[in-house]
């Protein structure tokens, strides 16, 4: 009797992110870093040519990583490998999909390829994660077919303030949707630019229908634990690990802090003697053009 196999379904794409919950996804730029991340207990790695803080420093146009690097990382580890494509860059995304990357981040860390439209992600077999600053942005991305969300934060700054702002905003708006009556939701959909049907779904579920991670500014174990307490399902760490003084120790400590985010004696213990965290940037020092979070629509 022949069986039917369906790939690329919503359950399979969202399910992959559900399996990452409670975990840490780490940015890496080569096989060696990928192995350090895997050894430390990362649930996935994000293969990049440069971490966000170096992208910031380098300036110019930031694009998809050289496929050599992505392939090298895929070869080096058995955990899932993610990679970033520019916002709206259909071909970069298709190239990464063809390579068998496990998840694509349509990311504001790279220079957008389209200043009007994001990818139509539900046409792909590979699942996508997208950044959001508020519920409207989150639900526009879900409407396009994203299978996982993350806060945008402000990448490459080592400053958690924007990720906190975005996580609080999304959760505050979810509570508003739940408490509103159904006849108020169409106007609210218009106000925040969200698909009405998804607001109805959130009212019924009481939460987002996909996993939502924290990203953009996590630099210490305490930052990771803070985001978990604010309701993140897990944590992306970009520059925070390999721009710290001791990446192995930092990576292990951030993984443990994400699991035991409300065990304060344990957090105190694992935060001891880690060495210098990445040097941070005060957000108000960034000019408008340097703010990556404002990319995306």
């Amino acid at each position: 009797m022949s069986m039917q196999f369906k790939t690329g379904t919503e359950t399979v794409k969202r399910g992959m992110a559900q399996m990452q919950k409670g975990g840490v996804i780490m940015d890496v730029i080569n096989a060696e870093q990928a192995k350090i991340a895997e050894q430390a207990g990362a649930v996935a790695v994000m293969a990049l040519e440069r971490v966000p803080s170096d992208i910031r420093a380098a300036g110019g146009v930031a694009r998809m990583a050289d496929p050599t690097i992505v392939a090298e990382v895929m070869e080096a580890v058995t955990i899932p490998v993610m990679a970033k494509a520019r916002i709206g860059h259909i071909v970069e995304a298709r190239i990464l999909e063809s390579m068998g990357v496990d998840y694509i981040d349509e990311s504001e860390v790279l220079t957008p390829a389209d200043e009007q439209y994001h990818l139509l992600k539900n046409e792909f077999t590979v699942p996508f994660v997208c950044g959001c600053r508020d519920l409207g942005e989150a639900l526009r991305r879900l409407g396009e077919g994203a299978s996982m969300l993350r806060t945008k934060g402000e990448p490459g700054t080592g400053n958690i303030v924007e990720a906190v702002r975005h996580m609080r905003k999304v959760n505050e708006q979810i509570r508003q949707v739940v408490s509103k009556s159904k006849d108020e939701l169409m106007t609210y959909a218009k106000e925040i630019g969200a698909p009405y049907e998804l607001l109805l779904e959130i009212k019924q579920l009481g939460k987002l229908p996909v996993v939502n991670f924290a990203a953009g500014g996590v630099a210490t174990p305490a930052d990771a634990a803070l985001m978990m307490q604010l309701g993140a399902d897990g944590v992306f760490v970009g520059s925070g690990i390999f721009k710290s003084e001791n990446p192995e120790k930092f990576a292990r400590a951030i993984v443990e802090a994400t699991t035991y985010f409300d065990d304060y004696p344990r957090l105190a213990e694992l935060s001891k003697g880690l060495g210098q965290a990445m040097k941070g940037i005060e957000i108000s020092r960034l000019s408008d053009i340097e703010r990556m979070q404002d990319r995306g629509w």
Partner: protein
Amino acid sequence: MSTSQHQTKKIGVLNLQGAVSEHLAALNRIENVDPIAIKDPKQLDDIDGLIIPGGESTAISRLIKQNGLIAPIKNFAKQGKAILGTCAGLVLCGKQTTHNEVELLDLLDITVERNGFGRQINSFETTLEIEAIGQAVPAVFIRAPYIASAGEGVRQLAFVDDKCVMAQQGNIVVCSFHPELTQDDQIIRYFINLC
């Protein structure tokens, strides 16, 4: 109320990483089950059965070790209490993996091929005929492992093509797929009957 209380089974879900809330939600749909998230070895004394959920087996394995859970879980199994391992949970319950890349609990005599069905783009949904469970059981496979070989004492319960995706040895049940991602409770009920 007093009669239902003594029939209630306490079922733990290992709460280190992965699909914990999905298993708790599935258990909540079943009558006379009290679901509990487990992080601390001491909590194992209070439960009748344990679910090791899907997630990343490398990450969960590290956390099991770090948290002193290896011996307590092995002991739990030795006492004859039931354990269900799904996906990464199957890997962790196994005796060995084909590439020896993860430290396992060795609760049943199977060798596991991790990510045996390929990468995420090959992840799939299907339905399985499982004699012990039922017909057309919905099954979601996500970067799923399969059982490459099994010892004599192991009952192989389900297959995709020629690959074994569900097995049981005494009180230990494992499956490559994710019953907690469907609304079909048959596999979870089968496990609870063993508890």
